[in-house]
């Protein structure tokens, strides 16, 4: 399956570049060490560098932020093609809603996705076991046949354990997890939704968060980031996968996903027509807060 997707991807990428439809195809390649990583293909002759398998977990939408401005003043913003799984397209949808990306500048090569695997255990990632979406909500071209996967009910089982704890116990849990955070911001940098030109955690004037790499600053950063992603996080898990200290950041983000879903019946990036609730004001709105 992934082999035929790979062949189709290469063919499509080559065509797009040959026809001049796009200037670059952002996809995946195999590094000299054999691991999959993001790739940028400019030359149709290089299209065969592209690969597809169940370790293509990176959310490539993050690279669209590098391409929001023209290379030189006065020039047009070049159009790019990007390989996108269903979760990646949800992230793109959030960025479209937020006016970050011009839709016509992105050619979406949607991929029918059977889920991504953990690199260490080769088992399906937890987020992919829960995922119901096999085909992106929109695309310009689709590669692969939608795989048949048995539907799973979202039971929030991973959160239940934390929710059972008292507030003090939860605080202790997160203090233990954040303690080994090194403030490298890999989580933020890997997140398509974190695109502030200057992050509040690093802003100097005014200085909201101190420079110390200590628990208060680290905890503040993570909680702030989680809140800034409330109603925007698409559960692609790019943050957790990027974390060099393996902090279970998805627990934090999913808690807010759950709350937003309970309050608004809304999942970020899911429906191109529904505006995000936390960016929408309705005069008559009443919330059970």
């Amino acid at each position, binding site marked *: 399956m992934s082999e035929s997707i790979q062949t189709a991807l290469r063919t499509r990428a080559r065509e797009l570049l040959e026809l001049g439809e796009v200037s670059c195809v952002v996809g995946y390649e195999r590094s000299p060490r054999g691991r999959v990583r993001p790739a940028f293909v400019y030359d149709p002759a290089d299209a065969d560098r592209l690969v597809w398998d169940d370790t293509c977990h990176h959310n490539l939408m993050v690279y669209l932020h590098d391409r929001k401005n023209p290379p030189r003043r006065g020039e047009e913003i070049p159009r790019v093609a990007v390989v996108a799984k269903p979760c990646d397209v949800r992230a793109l949808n959030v960025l479209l809603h937020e006016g970050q990306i011009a839709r016509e500048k992105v050619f979406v090569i949607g991929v029918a996705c059977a889920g991504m695997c953990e690199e260490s255990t080769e088992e399906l990632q937890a987020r992919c076991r829960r995922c119901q979406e096999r085909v992106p909500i929109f695309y310009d071209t689709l590669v692969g046949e939608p795989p048949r996967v048995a539907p799973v009910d979202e039971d929030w089982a991973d959160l239940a354990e934390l929710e059972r704890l008292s507030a003090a116990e939860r605080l202790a849990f997160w203090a233990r997890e954040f303690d080994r955070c090194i403030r490298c*911001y890999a989580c933020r940098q890997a997140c398509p939704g974190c695109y502030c030109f200057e992050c509040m955690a690093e802003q100097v004037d005014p200085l909201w968060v101190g*420079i110390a790499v200590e628990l208060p600053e680290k905890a503040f950063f993570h909680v702030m980031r989680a809140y800034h992603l409330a109603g925007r996080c698409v559960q692609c898990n790019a943050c957790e996968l990027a974390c060099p200290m393996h902090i279970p950041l998805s627990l934090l983000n999913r808690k807010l996903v759950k709350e937003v879903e309970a309050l608004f019946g809304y999942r970020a990036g899911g429906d191109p027509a529904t505006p995000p609730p936390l960016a929408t004001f309705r005069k008559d709105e009443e919330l059970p807060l």
Partner: protein
Amino acid sequence: MKLTRREQLAAWLDALMERATVIAPRQVESELLYRPVAASDEVVFDFQRTAMSPKGYFLPSTEVLLEIEKRGAEVTLDEALPQEEQVLFAIRPCDARGLRVLDALLVEHEPADVYYAGRRHQTTLVGLACPRLWPECFCTSIGGAPDDSSDVDVMLYEVDGGYLVSEVTAKGAALLAGLQAEETDQPAPVSDRDGPSVLVLEAEAWPALFNELYWARFTERCLSCHACTYVCPTCRCFDVRDYTTAAGPNGIRIERLRSWDSCMAAAYRRIAGGHNPRSSKMHRLRNRYYCKFNYCPQDFGAVACVGCGRCIAVCPVGVDIVEMLGDVAALAAARVGEGGADE
């Protein structure tokens, strides 16, 4: 050479903990990290490499440099110089070599960093040889070796029945007082050196390649996070700020704080007026490599990379310093072939 059994080594460690802070590899949740240990059974002896280098015990990720107190017209400055003796147990040869690099920059180059120098002086290094190169390692390409004892005070080699103990310095010999061990004429085992052979260009060869288009392509996938710089045993950039910790009608107390900073951060090189000479990730990542292989060797006589492989292991998007070194060597060779090397 002496031979000590694991339980004898553990007993010595336990006794040592009574009189000094012992820092050793310890499992902290999901990660293996150098941490102060309270008992030898917390120490992990069998490991490849720790998630972080031990540089934080010499250049902490956060430290108070000064406390300033102002009462009326009277101002007092209190320098928080490190006082405590510490033992770093089971440091790998590459990480110890990283300290030699930091010494060249922070101690041997005036003005010395008194905080770093103080901790270096008050620390005894007990090395633990690697039997081989681990995945991502390339120490042998950069002048090191998995069993190199040149930068430690004591070197341990794991052998059948325990550890061979080599006293490298007088400081190390003193530390070993009380260790139960028997004399042996068994030679130190030679570690397996199988690993990548990477040609590292001489410092002088780098400037000619500065404007190669290669850099924009190679750095395109970089996310501009700080992970590579923070796990690196030789990256040492920092930020300093003053914080008011107490203020009242009688006076004010200020703390001068230093913390790690990263040249990968977009704002790192921003200057007054808002201009940023390293505004793109191409500028930033290229600078990181030039710092390691061109600027540090030229300014301080030390290549600022020890081949520990952490930056490769930790990068979320597969940016690979070994790949870069190979590419750069090929670029340089191609330029020589074209006769354009002296541009």
